[in-house]
């Protein structure tokens, strides 16, 4: 039993690169389908808490996409910051404002045909230009980026944007406290 398992694991190393590619495409198709369906449910559902949970599915799918693209540090950051922190913030925001919404007016604006038109136009124009420009462009299959490389790049080439981001985060922190606190 154990030897069979070990043989299976050893067999994984011997996957041909074409087999890896097929596996990547299968996983891409599954994750992309789940992401698009969850995003559609998120923008159309009446229940806001359900919408937040659908957003979790989309964000987790995006993390899977980052892993498929060989960017594992971005994937981990995505899970930590988005699913760990931002979704919790959203749930707090939903709970603090819940019951405030008059259901007789509905969750949606009345005339949504223009919104559908804009969305369809965006996806048509963008997809058309992508297909026109990168029709047969393959992604390179070099070794994926390492976390050390990202750290080196941030702290050498992008050090000034990095410091600016830290000041921005501080400003946003103070600003949100000032906006949201009750006046004495």
């Amino acid at each position, binding site marked *: 039993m154990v030897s069979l398992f070990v043989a299976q694991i050893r067999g994984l190393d011997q996957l041909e690169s074409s087999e890896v590619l097929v596996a990547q495409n299968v996983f891409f198709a599954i994750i992309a389908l789940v992401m698009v369906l969850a995003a559609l449910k998120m923008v159309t559902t009446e229940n806001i808490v359900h919408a937040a949970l659908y957003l979790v599915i989309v964000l987790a799918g995006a993390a899977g996409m980052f892993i498929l693209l060989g960017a594992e540090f971005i994937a981990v950051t995505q899970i930590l910051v988005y699913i760990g922190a931002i979704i919790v913030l959203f749930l707090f925001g939903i709970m603090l404002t819940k019951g405030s919404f008059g259901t007789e007016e509905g969750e949606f604006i009345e005339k949504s045909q223009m919104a559908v038109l804009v969305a369809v136009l965006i996806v048509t124009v963008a997809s058309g230009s992508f297909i026109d420009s990168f029709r047969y462009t393959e992604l390179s299959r070099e070794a994926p980026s390492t976390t050390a490389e990202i750290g080196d790049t941030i702290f050498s080439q992008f050090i000034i944007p990095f410091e600016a981001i830290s000041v921005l*985060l501080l400003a946003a922190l103070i600003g949100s406290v000032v906006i949201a606190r009750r006046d004495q």
Partner: protein
Amino acid sequence: MLLNQFLILSAVLFSIGVYGVLTRRNGVMVLMSIELILNSVNINLVAFAAFREAISGEVFALFVIAVAAAEVGVGLAMVLLLYRNRRNIDLAGIDSMKG
């Protein structure tokens, strides 16, 4: 893998997010749709980073994540302020600055 499959996926997610921003009346839902838009942009950035084998795309994706976190903090604070002043967060009802 083709580059296009990631780009078209992110275009689809972007347009779904735009649809959400345009149709929802709830302030929190609009902020969540904006998160969807920023996420599709991140997929685009990382896909181009893998295509060009340049690390800068991934660094930019990290910056986008940080700016999105700041934006959600300020945005939710504004939604809470709106709720405290008006007792609802219906964005269609905010027209006091309409000319």
